[in-house]
């Protein structure tokens, strides 16, 4: 976990270090005097060597969770990020829920009607979902639901209704991926012997699918939820700026537009850390729900008790 964060931080820092031109000069504009530029460079710590700057930056993040200051507004980036992150997280979580509760049933329907009409339809929805550019869907949704029908607000934050359009726009690829994964892993499980056994016992088909097939099929699907969060955090960048939601993503885009590279760098690293944390949680959840992995951590004595 810590090595991954360190690696990501070092890598992003190094990439951003390579930006051509003098950031101090860029910030002050073409009319600045050399003295002003020199003072600014001193202020930003640009005169130190690469390793000193890297050390300060990485040390700040890992030890104090301090991302430094914005170059343009001179405010601490960490405060801003922590203030904005709940909104980004809310969007990502709503999308994950949509993904689970729409994608999974679609996948089950597809697998149960393998090669039938239901399969075709849900497969088509799935491949359609990954082919939609989310920023375009977002604009289309605004055009239709906000400007034409006037049902939902086109931008800003407030109540839950401000989150409806952004989440719909962002959730498509996740729903599609979830449906595809559920389908293929269900198809694999449905052919196993214990499903035949369950059917042979005279169990109802619904019970076979929901009690025996689904739990086993969902295990591999759990891992793709982690990846899905990564896609959502990244997708939030553009969706937030379309809907003017003050989250981490719109902070990042704002940083790009004002050339506030301290903000860009910190936002990317912050989102990557959030992603790494989610992957860690997913791994833990996976271990928790998969009895095969759980068994490895349970001592021999306890295992006897289970028997």
């Amino acid at each position, binding site marked *: 976990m810590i090595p991954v964060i360190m690696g990501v931080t070092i890598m992003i820092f190094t990439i951003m270090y390579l930006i051509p031109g003098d950031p101090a000069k860029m910030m002050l504009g073409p009319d600045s005097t050399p003295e002003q530029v020199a003072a600014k460079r001193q202020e930003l710590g640009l005169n130190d060597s690469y390793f000193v700057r890297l050390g300060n930056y990485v040390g700040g993040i890992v030890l104090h969770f301090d991302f430094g200051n914005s170059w343009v507004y001179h405010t601490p980036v960490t405060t801003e990020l922590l203030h904005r992150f709940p909104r980004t997280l809310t969007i990502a979580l709503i999308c994950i829920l949509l993904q689970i509760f729409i994608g999974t049933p679609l996948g089950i329907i597809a697998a149960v009607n393998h090669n039938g009409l239901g399969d075709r339809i849900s497969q088509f929805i799935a491949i359609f979902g*990954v082919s939609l550019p989310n920023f375009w869907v977002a604009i289309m949704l605004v055009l239709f639901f906000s400007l034409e029908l006037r049902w939902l607000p086109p931008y800003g934050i407030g109540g839950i209704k401000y989150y409806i359009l952004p989440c719909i726009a962002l959730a498509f690829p996740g729903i599609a991926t979830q449906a595809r994964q559920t389908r293929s892993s269900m198809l694999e499980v449905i052919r196993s012997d214990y499903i035949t056994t369950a059917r042979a016992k005279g169990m109802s088909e619904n019970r076979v699918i929901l009690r025996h097939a689904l739990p086993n099929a969902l295990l591999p699907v759990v891992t793709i939820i982690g990846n899905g969060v990564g896609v959502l955090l990244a997708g939030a960048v553009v969706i937030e700026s379309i809907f003017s939601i003050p989250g981490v993503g719109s902070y990042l*885009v704002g940083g790009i537009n004002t050339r506030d590279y301290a903000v860009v760098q910190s936002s990317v690293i912050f989102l990557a850390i959030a992603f790494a944390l989610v992957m860690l949680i997913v791994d833990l959840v996976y271990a928790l729900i998969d009895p095969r992995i759980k068994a490895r951590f349970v001592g021999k004595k306890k295992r006897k008790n289970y028997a």
Partner: protein
Amino acid sequence: MERSSKRKKQSEYLVVARRLSKNPVAVISFVVTVFLILIAIFAPLIAPFPYDKQDLMHTRAAPSAQHLFGTDELGRDVFSRVIWGSRYSLSIGILAVLFGTVVGMFLGAFAGYFGGVTDDIIMRFIDIIQSIPGILLAITISVVLGPGFFNTILALSIGGIAMGVRLTRAAILNIRNQEYLEAATSINASTSRIITRHVLPNSFSPILVSSTMSIGNVIMAAAMLSFIGLGIQPPTPEWGSMIAGGRSLIRSAPWMVTFPGIFIMLTVLALNLFGDGLRDALDPKLKK
């Protein structure tokens, strides 16, 4: 020897092509893809107007017989711009994936073939790349390199490198202990020859499928980069930057946003469906 092996390879591709041709969805998506590529190649002949020709008397005109997709705020023909835009989107998609895949394949081949420290170094590097969500990495690199055609390609190809490395390495670990590699080693074939002639061709099909699928993703990512102001810059008629340009005028001229988006969707959909069909054709075991 050389000849017989060549003939065998060709017939293998024929088998795949025959299987593909039996899948109507794959055929349709292939035709659409080829059609889009032809549009891109013959853009100057198809587009009724130059993409930058302004007509300030007819700004924001609704779609009509003369301007099929309407005109934008400077009176430029949206249809012509969409047609020209296919050049940028398609070539960025294809070149970025090609570059990423080729570099990834060689790195993956080295990692998988040599193992040990080489493998460790390359794979730790890939781990770090993959723990940054792809779009964010592309944004970062794009910020550093600045806008432009080749810079955008470079920014978008990094994700492809990671994917290529992983797939190639996995495939090679799979085949590394097979007898024909032992045979090649025993007749004193050089390492580079073994990798390029024996290892890579035999690990190619999963990479081909995922490359096809990722062209679509890269096209979308490229559009997104230009949408947030990186990547290809206006007045170049890239689809993403056209959508960005039309966004503020969406009430009065929705066609400025609608049509580029439809073309992105069509292109990506066709590529994804074709990739799907290709996977089934290359590996019939999957489609029981």
